């Protein structure tokens, strides 16, 4: 045993034990696996969320210097991107303005008109601010970021956004920074709104850009409760000048003091933006994902024959995904931070790891015998595939390791992930997927038992009905339903519909969910936490949200005002009492930029064709400005049309409203979703009532043996039609012949019975008279008994040969139709003149046979059922030939001792070829011997009876042509049978009073070098196949050899020829050759089977072959391309028959199955008897009335296929 084999065995055994373990404790193992997945994924929590969210880094303002390009010593503190100058410094002036005290003479517009109006003076102030010191005069113009043209696509914004100058934005931009335009504007809200994008938008709106705070916080609304307007003036600076900015800050603070403002101004925030994903990058990314999904789809589609396809497909995908997550998690745990773009390499990782192993595993497990225990099935399936799985994993690891040595950092990192991913995938396959599979199989098993029980309670009915030929004759309605069911159209539509629905939901965003989520995300994203902690110790701490700490700017209104407010307020019902707005500065104002969409800055800069991708900006501390405006001022700045806007009757607090809407919409959405799902479910039930034959159909046959169902998982109902059993033979049937009307069978005991093929009545019995012979010869009592077998096994003087094969029923018979042993035996016997052998001096062939068995035992295709067709063990009877009657041609007792090896039936004549070389003609009806020919001495292995000619092939390779002659000319013979039907020519009917003479017309000695194995005659040709690898074609009339066909590299095992001169031959080499009989040329040559081709049938369009590998292959006749193959149960694929062009019948273990040839569908399985185990159908004849005769142990079985008749007519 080589190391490789030992390794293989060890692996197989380990997998077997592992399979047992997994199937025994499914739940603990699944729990354990889930726990380990979670543990391995835990480090992922530390990683920032994938996406393009910006990263922040905070430094102090005081000792700020522009970072160097080259990394400095203290790397630990600084992030990698913090190098070089930023794209811009952002200075924001945060303005909070309110009209106070508020009185009821003011209209809602007053809330924001005059505060916004103040922006112009502020802008003026900022623009004109000049700082002078020793180094010169500095103004904003010299420091700010100069921008050029807007992008060509943004002409619309040209009037609003600055061009060719400082990048300075404020709400004043709506009115081109001109106070006059502002004063003339009758409807401020409309102006602001007209630039809002309609419908769906993902990027920042102009309003957010100009106001610099979130829409909800601006207070620019008619229904604002707080009546405080907030906006910012944003200045982008190209260089940082602390002195200028300090003076600006001081100036603004001096002009508009925010007394209690406690905003920290000692740190600046650097925001780094990751690479943007533009459409250009998105297209390849989307492509890879589409390919990935196609791959997953095509892979999981192959999962078959399990309880829940979807569940297993999901488990497979989960296996791969979580193995990837585990790989990333583990890598992170051990200090490797992923630098690659996860989204980009993810599809490739999935493809590299692949779903193949999982599928192989599933296939292997479901193809184990169903009647085994689940545990054993899992274990067996695992161990079957263990070697290939291990090889796969090793190969992939090897390839990836090679990739690791490319020394390209990115590829190395990819390989590292892939290696860890592969290993964890293997782990998950072994533990997670296998266990899930075992659970699934167990569920399926339970179902079968249930159904089987149900099935047992109800009486069986004959169900040979429409489904059997659903492809041929079906009402249109049914066909549509089948089509729907087959293509799973309804489910697919439902799935697509659901996806579209969800897509639309997300797209239209009815509840403003996205905004809400964005706000949530921006608040909870790591930006907030990671930015602040280092400075919290330094800065004064504010307990967030504590109302006492919000410091009111305005001194509390005088108590005299309050009652006045009350008295004024109650005139409108439900009106909230107007209170004077209070301007408060809280910690929430500090990081105003955080509340903005993350894309605010990139989009602002991208308008000017400046990218922030992979760069950073520095945000300087905001300058707070508080404005208090008097009501008089508000009224003065009022536009004449402003008073039209009356407050709505029931103003509602926006916050509450938002909340309520959100909940309401969520509840409604949920309800709608549930309703829709229910509706679709009902629709689905209505549309697809069929269960695809997986669950709903009782699987009686599952318990008997697993026959494959068709590719849709549809298994047709098992027909409980009871075949007609023809009983009478005492031993296994050896020969079977039929001419359509009559049926002749010969059993091992030598008894020939003739049956009526229509009714199944036994017409004639031609007995072997074995007992009579045994009494006369005195040594044959044991022939039908079973007593003295012990001597047979050891003694040389033993003649209990017939028993030998009965003693060893479990041994596979090797002799079916192929005389492997004949050379061995024949060489000993063919020369011996039989008449000179003493009766008891038989040869012990036991040794030879045993040796042959031993030679053949290791061959992989042992799977044959005990086959009684093997004539070899009976061969010694040749040695007994001296006992036979000295007058062989007398119609009296003939040699009963030699067995019948070949039999043919034509007209009412049975031609029987015996092992002694004698050819006998019996009258089928009367049971009398009509004629006998004893010209040859070598056993007749095959017979062909064609018109009035009989061809006999002998064991020594010679071929004898006989002519059957009557005293009448042939033309006067009566013909029987309907002409033209089927392939059989009309055969003459020999009447009993005719004297029949059988003459040897020609004997071709040495037709073959080795024994002839197959003999077929049709269309005036006789074709023989032999062990010597050749096929010969003879003309029937003059016995002239036309061709010797060479092409096989093994003995010929099967030949097919029909009236249309199609010749096909199959050999022991597994090859099938198609020949042109007219020219003798080879048309095609295909290798289809591992092992012998056991049977071969042709239809007009295809060739059907079965082999020792239990495979039935269907080939195209013209091109020689394999159309498809049917994997059969072990040890049953030897017999084949074609009923019509599209109907194939195969014999199985105690059953025959009907297949649709066009589609490869299993149509029906008919069980021959109750005790079907172990009895295989070896011979199968298709009669012309579409009945099938097959042997079934010692019985014959006649199966009618009524629907076939129906179809044929």
């Amino acid at each position, binding site marked *: 045993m080589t190391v490789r084999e030992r390794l293989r065995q060890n692996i197989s055994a380990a997998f077997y034990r592992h399979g047992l373990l997994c199937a025994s404790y499914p739940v603990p193992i699944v729990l354990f696996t889930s726990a380990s997945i979670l543990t391995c994924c835990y480090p992922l929590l530390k990683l920032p969320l994938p996406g393009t969210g910006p990263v922040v880094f905070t430094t102090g303002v005081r000792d700020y210097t522009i970072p160097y390009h080259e990394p400095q010593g203290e790397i630990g503190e600084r992030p990698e991107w913090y190098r070089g100058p930023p794209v811009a410094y952002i200075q924001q002036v945060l303005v909070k303005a309110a009209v106070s005290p508020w009185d009821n003479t003011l209209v809602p517009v007053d809330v924001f008109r005059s505060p916004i109006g103040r922006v112009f003076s502020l802008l003026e102030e900022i623009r004109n601010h000049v700082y002078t010191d020793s180094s010169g005069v500095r103004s904003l113009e010299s420091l700010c970021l100069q921008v050029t043209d807007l992008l060509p696509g943004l002409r619309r914004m040209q009037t609003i956004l600055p061009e060719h100058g400082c990048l300075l934005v404020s709400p004043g931009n709506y009115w081109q920074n001109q106070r006059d335009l502002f004063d003339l504007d009758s409807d401020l809200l409309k102006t602001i709104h007209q630039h809002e994008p309609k419908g769906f938008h993902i990027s920042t709106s102009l309003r957010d850009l100009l106001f610099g705070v979130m829409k909800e916080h601006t207070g620019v609304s008619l229904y604002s409760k707080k009546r405080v307007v907030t906006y910012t003036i944003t200045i982008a600076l190209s260089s940082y000048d602390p002195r200028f900015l300090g003076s600006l800050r001081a100036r603004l603070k001096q002009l508009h003091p925010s007394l209690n403002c406690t905003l920290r101004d000692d740190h600046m925030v650097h925001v780094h933006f990751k690479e943007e994903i533009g459409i250009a990058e998105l297209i*390849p990314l989307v492509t890879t994902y589409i390919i990935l999904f196609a791959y997953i789809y095509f892979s999981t589609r192959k999962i078959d024959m399990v309880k829940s396809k979807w569940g297993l497909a999901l488990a497979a995908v989960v296996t791969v995904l979580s193995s990837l997550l585990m790989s990333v998690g583990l890598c992170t745990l051990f200090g490797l931070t992923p630098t690659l773009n996860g989204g980009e390499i993810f599809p*490739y990782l999935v*493809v*590299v790891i692949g779903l193949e192993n999982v599928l192989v595993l599933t296939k292997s497990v479901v193809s184990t015998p169903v009647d085994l225990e689940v545990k054993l099935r899992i274990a067996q399936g695992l161990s079957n595939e263990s070697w290939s799985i291990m090889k796969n994993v090793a190969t992939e690891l090897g390839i990836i390791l090679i990739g690791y040595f490319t020394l390209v950092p990115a590829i190395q990192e990819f390989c590292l992930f892939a290696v860890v991913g592969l290993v964890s995938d293997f782990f998950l396959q072994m533990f997670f997927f296998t266990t899930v599979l075992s659970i699934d199989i167990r569920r399926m098993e339970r179902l079968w038992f249930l159904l089987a029980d149900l099935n047992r309670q109800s009486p069986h009915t004959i169900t040979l009905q429409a489904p059997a030929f659903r492809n041929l004759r079906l009402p249109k309605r049914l066909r549509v339903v089948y089509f729907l069911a087959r293509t799973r159209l309804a489910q697919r539509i439902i799935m697509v519909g659901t996806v579209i629905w969800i897509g639309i939901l997300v797209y239209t965003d009815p509840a403003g969910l996205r905004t809400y989520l964005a706000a949530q995300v921006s608040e909870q994203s790591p930006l907030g936490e990671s930015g602040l902690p280092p400075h919290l110790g330094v800065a004064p701490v504010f307990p967030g949200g504590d109302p006492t700490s919000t410091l009111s700017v305005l001194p509390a209104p005088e108590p005299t005002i309050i009652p006045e407010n009350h008295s004024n307020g109650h005139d409108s019902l439900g009106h909230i009492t107007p209170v004077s707005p209070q301007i408060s500065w809280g910690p929430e104002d500090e990081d105003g930029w955080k509340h903005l969409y993350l894309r605010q800055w990139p989009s602002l800069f991208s308008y000017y064709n400046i990218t922030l991708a992979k760069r950073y900006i520095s945000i300087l501390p905001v300058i707070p400005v508080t404005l208090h405006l008097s009501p008089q001022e508000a009224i003065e700045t009022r536009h004449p049309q402003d008073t039209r806007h009356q407050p709505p009757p029931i103003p509602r607090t926006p916050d509450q409203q938002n909340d309520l809407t959100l909940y309401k919409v969520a509840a409604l959405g949920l309800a709608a979703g549930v309703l829709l799902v229910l509706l679709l479910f009902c629709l689905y039930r209505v549309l697809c009532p069929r269960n695809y034959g997986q669950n709903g159909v009782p699987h009686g046959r599952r318990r008997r043996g697993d026959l494959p169902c068709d590719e849709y998982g549809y298994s047709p109902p098992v027909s409980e039609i009871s075949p007609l059993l023809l009983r009478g033979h005492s031993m296994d049937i050896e020969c079977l012949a039929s001419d359509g009307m009559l049926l002749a069978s010969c059993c091992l005991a030598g008894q020939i019975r003739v049956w009526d093929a229509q009714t199944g009545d036994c017409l004639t019995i031609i007995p072997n008279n074995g007992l009579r012979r045994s009494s006369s010869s005195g040594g044959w009592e044991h022939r039908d008994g079973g007593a003295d077998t012990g001597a047979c096994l050891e003694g040389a003087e033993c003649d209990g040969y017939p028993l030998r094969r009965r003693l060893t029923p479990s041994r596979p018979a090797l002799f079916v139709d192929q005389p492997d042993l004949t050379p061995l035996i024949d060489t000993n016997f063919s020369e011996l003149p039989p008449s000179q052998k003493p009766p008891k001096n038989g040869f012990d062939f036991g040794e030879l046979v045993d040796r042959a068995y031993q030679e053949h035992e290791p061959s992989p295709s042992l799977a044959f059922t005990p086959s009684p067709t093997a004539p070899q063990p009976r061969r010694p009877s040749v040695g007994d030939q001296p006992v036979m009657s000295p007058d062989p041609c007398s119609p009296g007792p003939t040699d009963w001792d030699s067995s019948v090896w070949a039999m043919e039936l034509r007209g009412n004549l049975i031609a029987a070829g015996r092992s002694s070389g004698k050819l006998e003609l019996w009258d089928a009806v009367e049971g009398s011997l009509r004629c006998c020919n004893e010209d040859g001495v070598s056993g007749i292995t095959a017979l062909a009876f064609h018109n009035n000619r009989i061809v006999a092939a002998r064991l020594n390779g010679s071929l004898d042509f006989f002519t059957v002659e009557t005293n009448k000319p042939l033309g006067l013979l009566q013909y029987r049978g309907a002409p033209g039907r089927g392939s059989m020519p009309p055969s003459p009917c020999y009447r009993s009073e005719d004297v029949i003479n059988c003459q040897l017309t020609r004997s071709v000695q040495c037709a073959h070098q080795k024994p002839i194995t197959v003999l077929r005659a049709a269309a005036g040709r006789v074709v023989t196949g032999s062990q010597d690898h050749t096929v010969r074609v003879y003309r029937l009339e003059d016995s002239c050899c036309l061709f010797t066909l060479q092409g096989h590299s093994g003995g010929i095992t099967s030949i097919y020829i029909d009236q249309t001169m199609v010749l096909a031959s199959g050999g022991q080499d597994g090859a099938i050759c198609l020949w042109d009989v007219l020219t003798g040329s080879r048309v095609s040559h295909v290798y289809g089977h591992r092992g012998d081709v056991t049977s071969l049938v042709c239809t007009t369009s295809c060739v059907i072959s079965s082999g020792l590998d239990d495979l039935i292959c269907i080939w195209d006749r013209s091109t020689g391309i394999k159309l498809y193959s049917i994997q059969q149960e072990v040890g049953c694929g030897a017999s084949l028959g074609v009923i019509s062009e599209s109907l194939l019948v195969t014999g199985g273990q105690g059953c025959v199955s009907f297949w649709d040839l066009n589609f490869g569908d299993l149509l029906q399985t008919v069980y021959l008897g109750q005790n079907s185990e172990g009895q295989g159908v070896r011979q199968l004849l298709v009669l012309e009335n579409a009945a099938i005769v097959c042997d079934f142990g010692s019985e014959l079985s006649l199966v009618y296929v009524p629907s076939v008749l129906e179809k044929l007519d």
Partner: protein
Amino acid sequence: MEDTSMATKLSAPRGPYIAVITNRTTNVVIRGTMLFSVGVFLALVLNLLQVQRNVTLFPPDVLSSVFSSAWWVPPCCGSASALIGLLYPCIDHCLGEPHKLKREWSSVMRCVAVFVGINHASAKVDFANNVQLSLTLAALSIGLWWTFDRSRSGFGLGVGIALLATLVTQLLVYNGVFQYTSPDFLYIRSWLPCIFFAGVITIGNIGRQLALYECKVVQEKIHQD
């Protein structure tokens, strides 16, 4: 009786789709069209990948950058892929050694994904020098062939077409018909043959799979007649 059964079979409705797909010429045309579109699509997408390497893009430019290279490049790639995809099954047929490796769509998809991945790697990964790039890509391409093809004919055809295509491209460039956007000339020359080779293998795989489908349908049709 033969006639009647034949008649019933013929009268059985067969969809126009089947009728079309079983016509041999039509089938070749359909396959060619599919391969052509696959080729055009891959050319556009992969070109985009290459463009990204050198140019910083902004949204308004995207569509123009998709068509940034010469207009005739995608059709050329498409026709080449149609040719190759039809050639592969033909050669298999002629040599009489059918492609035995796993012939499933999932395998083909895997192949396409790996091909795109190779392109991705060549576009996105920074290599130290061109020799390293060439060697890595060559190893990846050979790996692709070994994993998904393993036929000698496939390898020969792949190498031949890759060399031919590289030659043609270089000739075009020298004659000034076509120019690379990248200033780095050597860079492109080093990846071109490997990418061509991997592309030929991929397209061949798709072509074989499509041909297999044709075989099935045609056989079925012959059956029915």
